[in-house]
């Protein structure tokens, strides 16, 4: 996979977490190829996109990162990642991160990509199975725990 495609997603992830949730996310290193099944950190959201290419973007957050993001954005405290507003926060943050990243890719490469509505899951027993398509992941550290982002892109 062309690693240049991952840059807008990682930049948007860091910008949106900082701007909306006031959470700094520092990348732990360069993006790496990720083809194995992984257990979710706690709350994950997947969004698909299609146009001249197709793909998906996944964010996976430690439960405390999701709860803190929800608190900082809405001003209310939450006890469980399964509360509707916590799931809504993670889902919408994924939508905005992906939308901002895809806007840059469309303007730069004319890919005519469009998003589908995001899906969100809560629970550390969720297993994320990454199909054998070219994908790149990056992990980040925040003051509240880890988060992971993964981009997969293939021909339409």
């Amino acid at each position, binding site marked *: 996979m062309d690693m240049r495609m991952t840059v807008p997603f990682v930049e948007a992830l860091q910008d*949106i977490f900082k701007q909306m949730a006031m959470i700094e996310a520092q990348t732990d290193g360069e993006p790496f190829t990720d083809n194995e099944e992984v257990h979710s950190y706690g709350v994950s959201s997947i969004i698909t996109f299609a146009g001249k290419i197709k793909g998906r973007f996944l964010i996976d957050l430690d439960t405390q990162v999701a709860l803190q993001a929800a608190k900082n954005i809405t001003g209310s405290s939450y006890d469980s990642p399964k509360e509707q507003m916590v799931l809504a926060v993670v889902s919408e943050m994924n939508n905005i991160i992906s939308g901002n990243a895809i806007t840059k890719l*469309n303007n730069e490469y004319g890919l005519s990509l469009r*998003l589908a*509505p995001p899906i969100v899951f809560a629970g550390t027993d969720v297993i994320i199975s990454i199909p054998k398509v070219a994908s790149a992941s990056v992990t980040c550290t925040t003051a509240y725990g880890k988060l992971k982002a993964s981009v997969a892109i293939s021909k339409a």
Partner: protein
Amino acid sequence: MIKRILLVDDSPLIHNLLRKTLEKHGYEVAGDAMNGKEAVELFTQLSPDLVFMDITMPIIDGLEAAKAIKSQQPTAKIIMLSAMGDEEIVSQAKALGIDIFLQKPFDDYKIISAIAKVI
């Protein structure tokens, strides 16, 4: 007279955030639609002064809903509020007669200054 605004977005978070901003600045939320189909139905029922419309939504997307609303009432005021903001999608929205196109994320200033330009 208090201006009444219809909110259209499939995210409960966006409804929550927009409602807080609008009520804090003296606007009334006329209704909440979670997809484009509900938006068209509620627009007909409620005749709001303004619509905040997302694009990526189930059933009918925001561009289709805006087109239906504009064909029903060409003077309808619509602000698109979307995570996407590329040149192609903005020009599709402009072609429908959308008043303003805002890209998420947003803050109070972005929302209130956009409203002031439209109504």
